[in-house]
């Protein structure tokens, strides 16, 4: 270590750190020479826990991998089990799943907006974002019975049908959010100050983004139109009309604007869901949980979470519980590979900024 170099441990208890993660920075002055992310503060060994629980008992477990957005996790697990066991999901369940995926995307993006705005010092939109998200949580609660861990996308469909009058409440919420977006724009997304604070920060080239395994906003912020919802439509996304917003810049600013545009798309998808919602049953009964065995096999399923590709590699050896489950979470590469790369040469002041623009969520890294 040169004389002026210094090792600086950033987090887990730090005001600039969102989530329980720590980064050790090798700095010279306030320029970061290299960074090393130190995860594991939230490691619970999910994939091992899953090997000890049967197919149904895993269903309430998996959503805990990501507290901000539990739906994609439930979704990949349900899809993986359905694909291994050969279960057909009713049409209406597909639509409800699409709906709840988008609600969850919206909620996650609002959380991101809260975190990002507050770390950049835009307190007004931060308060709005969290407040708006809370109304969405009310809707989640109405639909699923819980605010955070919904435990709703079950192998075989969804757990309960829509409650009465839910569509109207959701529409009212969507209108309110859509009406608020111009205010978000004027105070934040189109605010000159935001441009100054985020533009050029954490810049990554398209080649690097692909080579390092980036997905989601990291790719779309570099102009690559990549979205599992279009690439390999699951649930009812094949029937939905929406666009993949992209930006060319590759920096924090572009990634955040992609998030903003995705919220607009989400609102539109949700409206289409309500419009096209078919009738019928929402749940195909799965076998008795105590006796359910799934034939030997393996599968990889993936969905587009708010942060990028969320995948699950699930292996069954013909038993009543998974033999091996391995989650491919977007934050794993974003947080451990791309973040380390982007921090090189950045300033200490930008650590939180870069980390949040990559949308890194610590429990998803650790699992």
């Amino acid at each position, binding site marked *: 270590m040169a004389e002026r170099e210094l090792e600086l441990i950033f987090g887990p208890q730090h005001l600039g750190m969102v989530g329980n993660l720590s980064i050790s920075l090798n700095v010279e002055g306030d320029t970061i020479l290299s960074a090393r992310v130190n*995860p594991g503060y939230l490691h619970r060994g999910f994939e091992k826990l899953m090997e000890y629980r049967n197919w149904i008992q895993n269903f309430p477990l998996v959503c805990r991998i990501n507290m901000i957005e539990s739906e994609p996790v439930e979704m990949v697990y349900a899809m993986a089990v359905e694909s291994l066991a050969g279960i057909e999901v009713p049409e209406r369940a597909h639509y409800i799943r699409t709906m709840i995926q988008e609600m969850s995307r919206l909620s996650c993006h609002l959380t991101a907006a809260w975190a990002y705005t507050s770390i950049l010092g835009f307190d007004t939109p931060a308060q709005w974002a969290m407040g708006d998200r809370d109304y969405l949580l009310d809707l989640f609660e109405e639909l699923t019975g819980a605010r955070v861990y919904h435990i709703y996308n079950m192998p075989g469909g969804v757990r309960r049908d829509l409650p009465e009058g839910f569509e109207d409440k959701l529409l009212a919420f969507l209108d309110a959010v859509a009406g608020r977006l111009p205010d978000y724009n004027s105070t934040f997304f189109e605010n000159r100050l935001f441009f100054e604070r985020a533009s050029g920060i954490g810049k990554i080239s398209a080649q690097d983004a692909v*080579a390092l395994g980036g997905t989601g906003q990291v790719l779309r912020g570099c102009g690559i139109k990549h979205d599992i919802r279009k690439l*390999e439509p699951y649930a009812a996304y094949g029937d939905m009309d929406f666009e993949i917003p992209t930006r060319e810049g590759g920096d924090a600013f572009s990634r955040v604007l992609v998030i903003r545009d995705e919220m607009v798309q989400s609102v539109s998808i949700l409206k289409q869901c309500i419009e096209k919602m078919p009738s019928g049953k929402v749940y195909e009964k799965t076998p008795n949980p105590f006796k359910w065995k799934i034939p030997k096999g393996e*599968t*990889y399923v993936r969905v587009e979470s708010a942060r990028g590709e969320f*995948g699950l590699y699930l292996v069954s050896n013909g038993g009543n519980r998974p033999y091996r489950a391995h989650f491919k979470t977007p934050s794993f590469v974003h947080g451990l590979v791309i973040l380390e790369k982007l921090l090189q040469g950045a300033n200490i002041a930008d650590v939180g900024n870069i980390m949040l623009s990559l949308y890194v969520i610590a429990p998803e890294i650790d699992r």
Partner: protein
Amino acid sequence: MDKLVGLLKGIFKDTDGESLGKNRLRVTAPRGSVLAVLDYLKASGFYQLKSISCVDWMDENEFELVYHVASMESPLHLMVKTRIARDNATFPTAIPIFKNAGIFEREIHELFGVEFEGNPDLAPLFLENWKEIPPFRKDFNMREYVKETYDSIPSFEEYQWQKEN
């Protein structure tokens, strides 16, 4: 998909490809040719390594490494698999082919104990002061470990009771 399998089989005699439903292809290769297969796949458009999974087939005394690779344009997702011996498991690193392979290898090294030759950074990722066998191995009895480690620590009531007696 079949074309790709045909091509692969043409170049690498001992590989085998099998479709696993829509857009999923499983390529099984022996230890020696996995990296060459990956290299070939990268050259033919599968730029991104999504993840590396490891499966512990204890009864067969083997680990299975699964490389998930995908292209950006097509929905095809490939799982390149190979089996390696479980005792003193070693495998060459894939960093020269995929830059982000290192972190997955580091995770597998910690959780399964597979040694990746050529990977410069195999420090523990999640765990601190881990003294048992790697926890994701099938012969690691988690519930037993939990009982020994956490339940043996006395509760405050037990402590007070002990102090008084």
